């Protein structure tokens, strides 16, 4: 279908849909007047029932932990898909191509600024990950922040150190362990006769770092998995450019 015909069809039917949408949206309650019951119930009871001051993370890792389990396995499967599509096969014959030389280093100013940034990022990442149940943050955000540390290292040093960190087998093992330990923490209450993903650990005192039972633990597992997942994706995309080996046609 020609492009102009496609756009004209889209504008016609899109216009009809937009009119129907506006006709339906007129009956919605006005913006800013949330009336539903569940948000208010959670706001009232989350701190007392789970000893977690962050209601959003309490919902994510406890009240609706099953959805987050599905989301973690979506992440795992997508990284699996990326690796299957783009990874170089073992033993395939390769041709050497141009690559960034191992000794190539950026200017001293950039490296001097990036080194303290590494320290600050690591500390910040661990802080966000461990305080998931107390303040905004949690496992996923910490995972992405920590995954940027090898990239900063790549800016500071050369490609060799980046390659050695991200192509290590430990990254794959950590990712699998992160996803599996979430599932295992969910399955453990079944041994005690409780439903799946029950918060069965002692809840501790509100405001402590080691409070709210399995929420902190699940948050840590998710953080480990997300860090490893993003590092794997970054290395899979960059593998050819860093090593300079392209598979023969």
């Amino acid at each position, binding site marked *: 279908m020609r492009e102009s015909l*496609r756009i004209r069809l889209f504008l016609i039917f899109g216009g009809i849909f937009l009119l129907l949408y506006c006709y339906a949206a007129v009956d919605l309650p006005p913006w800013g007047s*949330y009336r539903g019951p569940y*948000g208010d119930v959670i*706001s009232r009871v989350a701190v007392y029932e789970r000893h977690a001051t962050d209601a*959003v993370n309490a919902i994510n890792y406890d009240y609706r932990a099953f959805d987050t389990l599905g989301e973690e396995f*979506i992440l795992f499967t997508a990284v699996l*898909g990326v690796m299957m599509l*783009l990874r170089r096969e073992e033993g395939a014959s390769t041709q050497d191509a141009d690559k960034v030389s191992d000794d190539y280093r950026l200017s001293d100013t950039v490296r001097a600024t990036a080194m303290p940034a590494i320290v600050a990022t690591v500390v910040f990442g661990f802080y966000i990950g461990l305080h998931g149940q107390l303040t905004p943050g949690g496992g*996923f955000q910490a995972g992405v922040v920590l995954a940027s540390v090898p990239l900063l290292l790549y800016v500071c040093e050369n490609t060799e150190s980046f390659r050695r960190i991200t192509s290590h087998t430990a990254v794959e093992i950590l990712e699998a362990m992160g996803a599996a330990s979430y599932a295992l923490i969910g399955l453990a209450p079944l041994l005690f006769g409780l439903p799946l993903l029950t918060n069965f650990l002692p809840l501790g005192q509100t405001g402590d770092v080691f409070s709210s039972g399995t929420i902190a633990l699940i948050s840590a597992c998710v953080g480990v998995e997300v860090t490893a997942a993003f590092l794997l994706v970054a290395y899979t995309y960059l593998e050819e450019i860093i090593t300079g080996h392209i598979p023969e046609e």
Partner: protein
Amino acid sequence: MPHALHLLPFLVAAWLFFCGLYGLISSRHLVHSVICLAILQSSTYILLLGIGYRVGGAAPIFADIAPGKITVDPVVQALMLTDVVVEAVVVALLLAMVVKAHEKAGTVSPDELRTLRG
């Protein structure tokens, strides 16, 4: 008749949805269409946000306010967190497919990649 201000998030969500869809349809580069898909997904954030907002409500973090105070809806925010993660992951997988298509066919234009070759 409700004021346009009362429905603003819902209208902006519809506008973003149609912008993303228009970009997807009229795209000439596969990576451009993947980014337009990300814009399309972000329209749902605005919609969910508009549903859960309450004027004068505080953030649902009780580290420094007393529980039971009027807050905005935390359930919808939990849904949005999952949504953001899924967007990142879907874009990663789609980009891997785009890179592979470029390797096999040598082109990234969706018009030229139309027929499926076994």
